């Protein structure tokens, strides 16, 4: 492939970003939230759609807690926030500074990095550490594919190591997660929508991992490998060479066939010997001069290609907070699949690169727009999702549900004047005791709540006994029923009870005044099992 052709293909796959630099994007120094609203509003005006009004402050507070710290606010936190008009910038700053931010993002990224691959390991310890120190995304990428110069104790390279037994899945996962392009179809044939995405791309990406192997739990690379061939649908044979998704090829110094074969044999023998001696010697086989995974990272992050890397994480995070990607699906980011707001995506990617892949800055920016803080209610059929006219209603993850359940169940855990360290310690204690709730499923695209969940929550004696067990004694200390209802609603739904709800609960409890504890328990159950608790809305 000539350089010219390589560039052309790069432009096709990347979505013509190379030429777009010249277009008039908003200046780089504008706050992220403003830029989002600028582009979203423009499209809404064009479509003549009036967006949903802002969500009530209590809803936005709950949304921000769930999105930034992975839990609902404790009753006392929610009430405190409601004392004055919401200053969301201040709240966002507080939440991203909290250790809950690292914990929650570790959970979210752990799921994202698994990419539904059953072989994929949990990388949570590494991710917690990385988010605690706000490690840049490009550095994390190098860590995860084992291309980092400084090894980490938390073994992020397990991302590759545990996937080595299925190199096709590894190739798919790396391309999908980091570059937003699932190239699986190109394993067997040309991509049906991107003519130029031939099988060379799949095998080219896979080739970066061919020399990788597992030596006693260490991710190493061989010096000598034969990259081999693949057959196309017509049965013609093609030679494999390393090639990044943009079309950038890597030529390896290689030996003539015969010598290469001998070198491979010799290296295999050496590895075998080192394996036998390892228990005593703890010695690793020598590392090759040419490191394919490091080369992949260098190419992916160089000036010509890095926008692809940046756009993918921007789109994935956008999907997380806005319930719908700027490009859908998040692993089909190619030129034929246009972004709903191409300039916004481009601006955000440029901003991320300019700020050294700072995820904390990006996340805080994404949740600071007016678009993010809209109501999730819409009368009648809502407008197309890609207009972002109405906030999404997103099911809680098992981790969010578990933490929120425990926080709600213990409304007295935080005092209004707790210093931040005390609050953090209490949170850590809650998390330790959080346990797992296997019946809450990890949501995926088009997720639906199955029957197992309500059966368990409705009828399991253990669950019913625990639910409200800590809340009821606290509520019973309050002098009257109205106050109890008030507190319970703040604790679970992070807002005051409406007058209608007060009346509803009043009469429910009145009918059960011969068994007030049971009555309260049932009210509490109804709150917990309401969709308002189950969803981030």
């Amino acid at each position: 492939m000539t350089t010219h052709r390589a560039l052309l293909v790069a432009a096709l796959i990347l979505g013509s970003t190379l030429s777009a630099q010249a277009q008039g994007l908003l200046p780089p120094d504008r706050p992220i939230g403003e830029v989002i609203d600028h582009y979203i509003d423009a499209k809404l005006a064009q479509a003549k759609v009036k967006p949903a009004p802002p969500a009530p402050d209590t809803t936005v507070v709950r949304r921000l807690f769930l999105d930034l710290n992975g839990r609902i606010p404790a009753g006392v936190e929610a009430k405190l926030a409601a004392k004055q008009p919401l200053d969301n910038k201040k709240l966002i700053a507080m939440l991203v500074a909290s250790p809950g931010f690292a914990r929650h993002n570790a959970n979210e990224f752990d799921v994202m990095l698994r990419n539904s691959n059953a072989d994929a390991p949990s990388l949570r310890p590494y991710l917690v550490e990385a988010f605690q120190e706000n490690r840049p995304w490009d550095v994390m990428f190098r860590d995860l594919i084992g291309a980092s110069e400084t090894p980490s104790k938390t073994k992020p390279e397990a991302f590759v190591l545990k996937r080595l037994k299925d190199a096709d899945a590894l190739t798919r996962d790396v391309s999908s997660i980091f570059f937003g392009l699932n190239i699986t179809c190109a394993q067997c044939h040309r991509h049906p929508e991107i003519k130029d995405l031939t099988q060379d791309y799949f095998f080219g990406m896979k080739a970066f991992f061919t020399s990788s192997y597992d030596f006693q739990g260490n991710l190493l690379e061989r010096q000598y490998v034969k990259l081999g061939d693949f057959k196309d649908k017509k049965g013609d044979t093609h030679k494999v060479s390393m090639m990044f998704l943009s079309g950038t090829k890597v030529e390896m110094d290689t030996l003539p066939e015969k010598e290469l074969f001998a070198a491979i044999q010799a290296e295999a023998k050496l590895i075998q010997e080192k394996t036998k001696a390892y228990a005593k010697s703890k010695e690793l086989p020598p590392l090759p001069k040419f490191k394919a995974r490091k080369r992949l990272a260098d190419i992916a992050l160089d000036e010509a290609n890095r926008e692809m890397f940046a756009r993918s994480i921007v789109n994935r995070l956008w999907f997380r907070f806005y319930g719908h990607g700027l490009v859908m699906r998040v692993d089909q980011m190619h030129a034929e699949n246009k972004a709903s707001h191409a300039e916004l995506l481009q601006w955000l990617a440029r901003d991320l690169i300019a700020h050294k892949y700072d995820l904390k800055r990006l996340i805080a920016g994404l949740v600071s727009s007016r678009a993010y803080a809209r109501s999730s209610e819409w009368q009648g059929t809502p407008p197309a999702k890609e207009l972002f006219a109405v906030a999404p209603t997103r099911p809680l993850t098992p981790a969010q549900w578990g933490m929120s359940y425990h926080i709600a169940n213990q409304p007295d855990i935080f005092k209004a004047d707790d210093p931040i360290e005390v609050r953090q310690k209490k949170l850590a204690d809650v998390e330790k005791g959080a346990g797992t709730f296997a019946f809450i499923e990890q949501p995926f695209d088009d997720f639906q709540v199955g029957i197992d969940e309500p059966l368990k929550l409705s009828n399991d004696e253990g669950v019913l006994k625990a639910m409200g067990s800590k809340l009821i004694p606290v509520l019973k200390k309050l002098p009257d029923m109205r106050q109890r209802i008030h507190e319970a609603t703040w604790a679970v739904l992070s807002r005051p009870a409406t007058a209608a709800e007060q009346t509803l609960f009043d009469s429910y409890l009145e009918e059960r005044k011969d068994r007030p504890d049971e009555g309260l328990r049932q009210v509490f159950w109804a709150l917990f099992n309401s969709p308002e608790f189950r969803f981030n809305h």
Partner: protein
Amino acid sequence: MNKQQAPTCGSSEHDLHRRAFLGGTLGLVGGLAGLDALGSPLLAGEVQRRHKRVILLWMAGGLSQFESWDPKPGRRTGGPFQAIQTSVPGYRMSELMPRMAARIHKTAVIRSFTSPNTGHTGASVFALMSGDRRDTGNVRTPSLGCLLGRELSQPNSLVPDHVSFWNATWPYSGGDKQLDFALFLGSRYEPINIASRLAPDGIRLPGSLTDADHRAREALRQQLAARFQANRNSDATVASHGGSYQRVRGMMDNAGLFDISREPQQVRDRYGHSLFGQQALVARRLVEAGVPFVRLTDGWWDSHGENFEIHASKVPTLDQVMSALLEDLEQRGLIDDTLVITFAEMGRTPQINAQRGRDHWGACWSVTLTGCGIRPGVIHGSTNADGTGVATDRVTAAGFFATIFRAVGIDHQKEYAAPDGRPIRLTPYNTEPVSAVLA
């Protein structure tokens, strides 16, 4: 005993199910959001398959074809068991299955099944996802059970659409959830998994609540939810939450279906008292009440060592349970509308290894189909003398799945749309059913 005199416990509950089963419009409809998006499965021309049901006997780990449907006595690969004459002239089965041998003229046996890979998860996932779906790339497709549950479900049904029994715990990481996903079909078609017992968890009234309070509590929840849902229910996920809660009482009302103490002792004895047998009896009660798909997983056949001891102990149970189930379905007039399948991840090797075991084998093994839409007494395909290769009429996983769909009246080339809009046919393009075994 004929079908008009089928024994029941005398409870009015049966009338209720029968009415639902006959297509009545009783009761509530839950979790239909995903379904509506795809159009009702009960279009006018498809009415004939209304009451069709499927029971899948899943021989988890891989039943040996040599010790069951395709014995090779006297050959180096044959093992110690003899073959016996069956009710189909010229067809011989393992001596471990005398009851099925006596009634095999009512079943179709495929001895030339071929599957490309032989892992416990990979192979069964591929197979259950409808036969080697390399054609869909890595777009996940719903499992066979979820597809059949949806295709054969009835509107307003009060019974579940997909029940999955396990008499052993799936030993692999990720668990059984890996095998059965409804995905875009909607939560209504997800399996209710029942492992190592006869009834699902959580279908009985908890002791801490009166029935009245249980109902009132749910009514309170619904009132509370109504305001939230009012302007959000067009979201399928939000709708599924409410829908699933609405189905809780329906599931509880069905608790009796899972109670085999309501069956006459004679019937229970016929199935035997193994967990597999008891679960099979529950399965019959379920299909009788209109449940469209029930899977019975019998574990654990993975005989890498002591193959012959394992099969000597397990095959007679399979023989008893399968023959009892088929006989029972027949006597109740259900067999013409119920397809019973035996299937697994793989067969077992002709070679007998050093541990007297047989390992995983995909090249040629046996599966069976009985009942609805199946031509009885067909012995389709054959293997060579040592059972090391297909001799005649190779059957692929895709072809087998197409046959299953066709047997219960579903167009095997019916197209669904994956969430990204990609068309997904029930079976890969150009797949043909095995017409020789279809009625």
